[in-house]
């Protein structure tokens, strides 16, 4: 199981309280993890990645194991600690706005 920590507004949309646990088939990458997340919570389509380009939305960043993974290729393997469920994958909104 992969653990994903969503920003508060996306937890509200998905109607979940805490971390999200996902089963990902095959190699665990940003793309496969986000595909699994959107499959499980279809209301999140378009909120993390653009509907058409599948690019990460600009005010969101990805972190895991103390590293900024935002600019890693979407098909690069995620750290073993994430794919094993030992460490969560964080989706974080930029600190901005009023």
């Amino acid at each position: 199981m992969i653990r994903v920590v969503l920003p508060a507004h996306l937890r509200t949309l998905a109607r979940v309280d805490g971390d999200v646990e996902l089963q990902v088939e095959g190699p665990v990458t940003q793309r496969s993890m986000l595909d699994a997340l959107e499959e499980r919570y279809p209301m999140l389509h378009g909120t993390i990645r653009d509907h058409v380009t599948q690019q990460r939305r600009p005010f969101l960043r990805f972190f895991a194991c103390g590293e900024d993974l935002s600019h890693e290729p979407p098909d690069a393997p995620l750290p073993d600690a994430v794919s094993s469920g030992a460490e969560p994958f964080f989706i974080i909104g930029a600190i901005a706005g009023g």
Partner: protein
Amino acid sequence: MSGVRVLVGTRKGAFELTSDGKRGRWDVSGPHFAGWEIYHVKGSPADPNRLYASQTSGWFGQIIQRSDDGGKTWHQPGTPPGEPTTAPDGTPKGESNKFVYDTSPETGRPLTTHQFYDGTQHPWEFKRVWHLEPSLRDPDTVYAGVEDAALFRSTDGGKTWQELAGLRGHGTGPEWQPGAGGMCLHTILIDPSDPRRMFIAISAAGAFRTDDAGKTWRPINRGLKSQYIPNPEAEVGHCVHRIAMNPSRPKVLFMQKHWDVMRSDNAGESWQEVSGNLPTDFGFPIDVHAHEPETIYVVPIKSDSEHFPPDGKLRVYRSRTGGNEWEALTKGLPQRDCFVNVLRDAMAVDSLDPCGVYFGTTGGQVYASADAGDSWAPIVRDLPAVLSVEVQTMP
């Protein structure tokens, strides 16, 4: 007993303000979608319990919300919680937030750019839904005006959206340009006497009309004068802020433009200025009395660079003559030290008798008048900045 439900969109959520027909005591519920920008909430004329809301965020993009019980509960169309990810009809869920410009050779056009602030061409990029206009007859049909300017339609209760690409594709699209608030399609008026006729308005492109249910469109801006456009006969490029109509007279339109209040007596074929004695002809909202089609309301704003009321006095101006002759309505409104704005979608009227008039401010007040504007009182004073106000009159 009759009553009203006022639907308020703000920078930080949606609110519902309800009252009986006397409109003196109010219940306030919300915030719904707390922390999100709610550009617009509107109910279906065919089913008052069917509400649509545009929920948007710079972080997370566009969400469409729907209520089937008058706002008690909400869901993303096609995505009720806990249900399978595909609807029985095979509709993929999570599609309700998807607004994709039509570029297909069959129905779309290879329209990829519009004019940007600096005069260069810029790609069309979807940003948000500014306005939702439910069909007058079918609760499942709803139109969405979006930024960058385009018109979308859903015929399945908001589950999926298709662009009416004839608007962007009619030929003037590359000349459209954004106003300060973005290049938004903010006004959608459906002709109650002919559902194939619709009017829309875009900042800063102008007003447009279809007579074939959205398939083809043409600009209707003859008579508009915009000082920043070198060509005085320019067909498009005008910063129209709002258009309003009384349903009993759908060929008569009233417009608040960036500068100038205008009227048309021929469904937009030509426009005449009716600013008359207004202290300033800049402003955003305009609306028409529910029962007196020559009675109109505007909120003059000092200028396009300051965006607050003249002299710190919040005044609604009413004309009972279809324009040109205006009276200031001040009773119950702050007449000193008031520097709020009233945005283009933040005024509405109910259909009770006497007609109720409502508007919201960027300072978070929602004011109501139960006597057609003669006197005003705040329903609430301290909401987040108000983006939109709509009213449902309940039987």
